């Protein structure tokens, strides 16, 4: 009896194995063809110097490429610092802002469709050429305006609003405010997908929780802290990780751009691969760090 059960179980087991592999098979083929091979090749490249580009002849040089990235390359480390600082500032702002917008959109409002399209626009316009073309003219407008503002400042005229601001709070603070404003615009443009994900999460919170809170006389403010926030915590974690991945692996990231220019445009395959690997490892550590911190705040239903 026991044996039959075991045999049945193992048969079931092998059946599960079989079908599991069957469904994952395309991905496994893709993994072998388009992922593992290039990945290993790029590890090899990062430890070598290319002596002949056309037939890809390699010479092993050890850690030289990695050492050069930190010791010889003047641009890499500052770019790395810039990108790291940027993401650590932007991730919390993106998450808070997109949660805020999602809560507003989740209320019973008119023109829901219009607002949803409007907030998804940055994703549609993309970060691609279209956006940079539009931004090209927008940015030149703002820089022009900034230059004019600077002029008015030096002339100590206080008619311009920015001059007024300087008079109120002093120049350093005015400059800081300006930087924050620019960052806010950037951030708004980064949060299209996150808003959508939060909206989805908010709609899965059972209405009965809010009704119960309403019966107990809870205010909107209390409802947010006691219900909405704990219930969306897993989504906050997901969105924070998504924001970081999206930013760190995007083509517009300064480090990624630099890696591409070294490795692909100047055909320095070895150093280019080494730079990419360093960036990848640092990104991984950063994301793991944020993940571990945020995970402690997740509330589990008992």
């Amino acid at each position: 009896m026991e044996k039959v059960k075991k045999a049945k179980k193992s048969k079931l087991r092998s059946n599960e194995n079989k079908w599991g592999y069957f469904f994952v098979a395309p991905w496994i083929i893709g993994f072998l063809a388009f992922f593992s091979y290039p990945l290993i090749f790029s590890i090899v490249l990062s430890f070598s110097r290319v002596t002949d580009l056309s037939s890809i002849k390699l010479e092993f040089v050890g850690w030289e490429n990695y050492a050069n990235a930190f010791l010889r390359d003047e641009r890499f480390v500052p770019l790395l610092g810039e990108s790291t600082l940027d993401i650590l500032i932007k991730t919390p702002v993106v998450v808070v802002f997109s949660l805020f917008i999602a809560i507003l959109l989740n209320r019973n409002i008119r023109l829901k469709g219009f607002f949803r399209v409007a907030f998804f626009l940055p994703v549609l316009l993309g970060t691609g050429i279209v956006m940079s073309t539009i931004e090209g003219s927008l940015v030149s407008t703002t820089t022009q305006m900034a230059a004019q503002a600077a002029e008015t400042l030096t002339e100590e005229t206080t008619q311009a609003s920015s001059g007024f601001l300087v008079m109120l709070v002093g120049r350093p603070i005015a400059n800081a405010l300006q930087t924050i404003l620019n960052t806010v615009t950037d951030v708004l443009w980064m949060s299209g997908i996150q808003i959508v994900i939060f909206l989805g999460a908010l709609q899965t919170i059972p209405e009965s929780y809010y009704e119960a809170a309403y019966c107990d006389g809870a205010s909107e403010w209390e409802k947010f802290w006691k219900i909405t926030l704990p219930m969306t915590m897993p989504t906050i974690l997901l969105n924070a990780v998504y924001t970081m991945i999206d930013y760190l692996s995007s083509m517009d990231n300064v480090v990624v751009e630099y890696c591409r220019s070294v490795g692909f445009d100047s055909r320095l395959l070895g150093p280019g691969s080494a730079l990419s690997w360093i960036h990848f490892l640092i990104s991984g550590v950063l994301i793991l760090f944020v993940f571990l911190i945020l995970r402690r705040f997740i509330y589990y239903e008992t």
Partner: protein
Amino acid sequence: MTERLSAKTRNRLATVRKYSGKTLGNIIVYTLLIEFSFVFLYPLVYMLMNSFKYDYEIVDATKQWIITKINFNNYTAAWRGLDYLHSLKNTLIVVLGSTLGHILSCSMAGYGFARFKFKGRNIMFMIAMLSLLIPAPLLLMPLYIQFAKMGMHGTFLPIILPAFFGFGLKGGLYIFLFRQFFKSLPVSYEEAAKIEGCSMVRIYARIMMPIARTTILVVFILSCVWHWNDYFEPNTYLEGDTLMLAQKIPAVASAHPTITSAFGARINMVALACCTLVILPLIIIYFIFQKQFMQGVEFTGLAN
């Protein structure tokens, strides 16, 4: 008597207060929403406005937003410069091809990861997620060499083929979406079919895929949008006759003059017209599917 009256008044007062509080809240909500959506809409409006202008209107400081005469010349120039229909065809081949690939391969992988226990499942899923994080330049050179050896340069295959195997542009994300969705379904769906003697392939194709249509729509929209706007892979593999829409913008832009406006902005009207033409199909698609897309995000179980 007085007591009753006062109770009534108190009641009415409470209602008034409640409603006025509600209206005030609504006013704040709408103000915030309109304000924020303005930030999002501004570039689009800016692009549309300026793409319909004549040069003399751009240098006119009295007309930043108002157009007196609509100028379609920018659009005819953009249409011709982009070689619109031909490039649109190329774009559609790449976008629809890779999107189809993503839907097929990622739904299969997602189903496999969600429903079956097999050796190495967790590690494989981890790798699939990790593939999202790998910066593209890391794999670019090896893949470039690999595709060159296979003689695929100048064709659409280097972009489309990986999508059919769960990789390509953000393939890992779609696997994640499908897995989340299939995990949220009760097992009873399949069990009933299994008892009837359905094979797993039939269950997947006939039962699971139709249930997953909202998730399929989400993946469809995201994959379309990202492939449409991507220029990294197309710039690496495509050339000459196979160029996609977005790739052609810089060339068209440099062939037409940039005008400095009265406000100091450097505006290339033809380039802006190009942008409008390039994203127009996308905006139409999204507008049509917007409602289902949002429902899809809800049902995909991203929240859990």
